[in-house]
């Protein structure tokens, strides 16, 4: 089990070593100490590793992640797990802006709060936030699921496409073309499945969430509005 102290080892050396690992590597568990808020730690992984990061990370941690499990034992800066393709990223603290931005797959779990623009332009990723999310979350979200145990800030789901938003607490305001929708059994089952994969099943009854999604009035060109362009 390699243990890397980022107070000693340069970040590029660590990321280079992680990128070189073949998919069938035996070195599947890495521990990173002293991240000290550094940027792009464990970004671009492409093997079924488990990476434990002990401390707070800076921007784009676990960005573009494929297959790997990245556990951040601390808080994360801007764009944690941005553009994730697959795998699992777990932040034990809070996450800054744009957590899970543009993610195409995999699961991002944040135990604390996520700041503004959580899940912006998400394209298939599942995001579970045990705290609350800030303003403009799920802006232009296209696919995937955002599950929030707490509250959501202003303009949730502004200009949303087909992502599904499940929020248990209060919504400060909904963004353009985002509406509340009926929470049917299939949606409760979907939330149950996501919570199970996130390892938090049993903590919250899926029926406590409300569902929000697209009214589908904005993202198709409407010929009646042609004069407004």
């Amino acid at each position: 089990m390699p243990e890397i102290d980022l107070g000693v080892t340069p970040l590029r050396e660590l990321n280079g070593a992680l990128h070189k690992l073949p998919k069938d590597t035996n070195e599947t568990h890495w521990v990173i100490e002293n991240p000290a808020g550094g940027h792009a730690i464990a970004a671009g992984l492409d093997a079924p590793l488990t990476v434990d990061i002990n401390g707070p990370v800076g921007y784009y941690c676990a960005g573009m992640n494929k297959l790997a499990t990245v556990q951040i034992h601390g808080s994360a800066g801007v764009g944690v797990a941005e553009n994730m393709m697959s795998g699992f990223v777990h932040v034990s603290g809070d996450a800054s802006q744009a957590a899970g931005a543009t993610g195409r797959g995999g699961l991002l779990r944040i135990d604390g709060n996520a700041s503004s623009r959580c899940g912006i332009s998400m394209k298939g990723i599942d995001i579970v936030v045990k705290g609350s999310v800030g303003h403009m979350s799920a802006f232009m979200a296209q696919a995937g699921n955002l599950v929030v145990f707490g509250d959501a800030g202003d303009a949730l789901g502004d200009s949303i496409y087909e992502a599904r938003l499940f929020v248990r607490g209060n919504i400060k305001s909904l963004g353009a073309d985002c509406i509340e929708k009926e929470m049917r059994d299939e949606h409760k089952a979907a939330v149950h499945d996501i919570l199970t994969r996130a390892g938090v099943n049993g903590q919250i009854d899926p029926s406590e969430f409300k569902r929000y999604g697209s009214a589908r009035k904005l993202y198709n060109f409407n010929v009646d509005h042609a004069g407004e362009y």
Partner: protein
Amino acid sequence: MCGIVGLFIKDPALEPELGRLTAGMLEKMTERGPDSAGFAVYGAGVEGQTKVTLRGASAEAIKATVAAIKKAIPGAEAALHDNHAVVSVPTEDVARLDAWLAEDGQDTEVVGRGTRMEIFKEVGLPADVAERFGLSTMSGTHAIGHTRMATESAVTTDGAHPYSTGKDQCLVHNGSLSNHNNVRRNLRREGMTFETQNDTEVAAGYLTWRMHEGLSLGDALEVGLEDLDGFYTFVVGTENGFGVLRDGIACKPAVMAETDQYVAFGSEYRVLADLPGIGQARVWEPEPATVYFWER
């Protein structure tokens, strides 16, 4: 880009460490602002004395200026820091100092004034700027600093932050204002003068004008949300502490940390990573369009 740091000490035992900790925080923001750097330090003040930070063309020039000031105003004392000098005069002599500067100090800039505030700023890497002025040896209750990556105007000392907004008050800014030309025109009509094409100088001038019109600093920041268009994180230093304001969209980063010993501000968490007890600190991001103050 640009980086901001701020440190407000709650525990007097940490005050001698203020400069050293601030210098470390400033250097961490080099990547966000390698063009120039500056900082305001709130150190010891003496009742009835006013400190005026002056900047000359060179260390030799400011030395000569200070010698001339001492001759003209017998009560004046001065501490030299490279091409800056902190001149301390009895408050009743400030008018005499201003008159002398207007007459004989054409090559000397007034960077800031107040009972406790000293401002230093210069072009260059943050670590070099901090070293030039001896930041790491300074002590005090609070400090704010800035590293600049210029976007709106030239890389000059005048374009570096902090900008003084009044006695013991200064402003640093991360972001850019899109209506600074309009606001500058309006403020010029109100009789204000501006030295540069810089957007932050306009924001500082705007706050000065609002406070001159009778608003408190907090209220001036509040109405600024309406009048200043663009994106910004402002940190303002006051005699007793500092304030933070982010625009309504909050696209410029800001992280805060608080322990029993201090409140700290950084553009990124990296800034805070070496502070004592950071592992146990409460760390959070300030809300958009919300004015925060920490004072004592």
